[in-house]
């Protein structure tokens, strides 16, 4: 149906206003507040030792978590698409869990298993291996929350492609590894790429689960999101007078996320044009 001009315009204005009021204006205010007192101040807050190590830790955790979930995701997609019986659907349902369960519950769950008095304490804690309240726990939490993305993006791609080419390769004598590496992987690469981007965005931004499993000591086990949280707490108790510190850390995180969003946009259009 085609609307008359006034109706069309009002809907347009409403939609744009909604996005602006909810997303754009608040984000803009954070950017503005960050640089309100000059670039120098903001830059100083972004380069404190705590901030630098937080950025590093965030990146390192993502660099561990995302490849793990990528390999898992591809394997999971292969099983979902190519196995018989209900296994595929069961796997598919389990993949929804990291998304639907609250992050603090995820943190609690990992604490109860890998913590000092957890189910696996005999394996880890009793042998002096610290998982919870240390970086390994944070990696686990990040893996949990960013788990489904690659699997979910690759599965429909794999399903659509079918295995004709792989069958042909096999009749020509290729081993299963060769087939996978030379034929399967290239054909799913855009699904993998988009899934990796989504996974990375999630891994970089995680707060709830990581907050529960980390020890919150500045400079030791703080990620950038945790730094934002901690600085905000400090402002509340008057330890740090300047709100700028909070905004600066948030801006850093926001800029990284916007870059990821841009990559998402680029890969997204590649992905749909290949379908």
């Amino acid at each position, binding site marked *: 149906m085609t609307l008359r001009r006034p109706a069309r315009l009002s809907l347009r204005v409403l939609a744009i206003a909604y996005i602006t009021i909810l997303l754009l204006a608040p984000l803009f205010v954070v950017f503005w507040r960050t640089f309100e007192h000059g670039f120098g101040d903001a830059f100083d807050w972004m380069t404190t030792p705590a901030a630098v190590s937080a950025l590093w830790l965030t990146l390192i955790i993502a660099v561990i978590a995302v490849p793990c979930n990528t390999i898992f995701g591809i394997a999971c997609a292969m099983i979902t698409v190519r196995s018989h019986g209900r296994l595929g659907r069961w796997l598919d349902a389990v993949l929804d869990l990291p998304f639907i369960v609250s992050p603090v*519950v995820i943190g609690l769950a990992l604490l109860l298993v890998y913590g000092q008095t957890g189910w696996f304490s005999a394996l880890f804690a009793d042998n002096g291996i610290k998982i919870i309240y240390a970086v390994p726990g944070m990696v686990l939490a990040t893996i949990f929350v960013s788990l489904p993305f690659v699997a979910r993006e690759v599965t429909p791609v794999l399903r659509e492609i079918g295995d004709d080419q792989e069958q042909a390769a096999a009749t020509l004598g290729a081993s299963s590894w060769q087939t996978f590496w030379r034929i399967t992987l290239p054909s799913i690469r855009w699904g993998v790429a988009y899934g990796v981007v989504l996974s990375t965005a999630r891994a970089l931004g995680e707060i709830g689960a990581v907050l529960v499993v980390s020890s919150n000591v500045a400079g030791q086990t703080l990620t950038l999101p945790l730094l*934002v949280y901690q600085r905000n707490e400090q402002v509340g108790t008057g330890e740090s007078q300047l709100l700028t510190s909070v905004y600066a850390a948030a801006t850093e995180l926001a800029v990284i996320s916007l870059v990821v969003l841009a990559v998402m946009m680029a890969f997204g259009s590649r992905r749909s044009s290949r379908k």
Partner: protein
Amino acid sequence: MRGPARRPARKIARTTVGGDNPLTLGLVVLYLSLIVLIPLAAVAVKGVSSGLGSFWSSVTNTLSLRALGITLLMSLIVAAIGAVMGTLVAWVLVRDRFPGQRLLGTLIDLPFALPSIVAGLTLVALYGPDSPVGINIAYTRGSTLLALMFVALPFGVRAVQPVLMELDLEAEEAAASLGAGSATIFRRIVLPALTPAIISGAALAFARSVGEFGALALIAGKVPIASIVIFDDIESGDTQSAAALSLVLMIISLVMLVAIRRTGGRVVGTH
């Protein structure tokens, strides 16, 4: 007469990696168990570990009950608003043409890319005590609603958008040629076609909002929120209460999950 041609003696290699490969399957299941299934089971076990009576009393104490009630109510409201606004935005993205439309479409995914704590901070910055335009609704239910609307925004839009794109315009054109006005066409033809998608989007928004923590951590203040109560319990060492309330949230989430899948929706990933 010759017999049928002999099969080549060469053995045909496995055609697929994974799929029927037990090693891959085993590793995938192990990965899922160690990271997802066993930890979640531990929460369920811990929740009822001091007996069902203790479970019940930790869940029904005043704070937990209030937090649950407010969280569920807020999530419901967000789902409803998200459904309406999501349909509106999807309409504008699909049926309209204007410069910057593609950019607007990408911005819808911002809540997916932006860390939830930054989302909460942006809302505090504009609508809190430090607001440049003098609006201060931080630490109230209103701000909680705003924060949840932020994180749930994409679901309402993305659920409806593809369905709207696939809609066959013939029915609408036929109705128009028979004299129906736009409102009637929307109500009688478009809306019924969109309803399953709208509901699916609303259910997703609800499921997302019920467990949200990061966006609310900075802006909720004294408003009791289930995830924040759980967090406080963990911090104070009361893992049993935390697990009990978590178990309730998990059950609610699972019910939503089943409902979403039944209506053909997807929680993560694209169609």
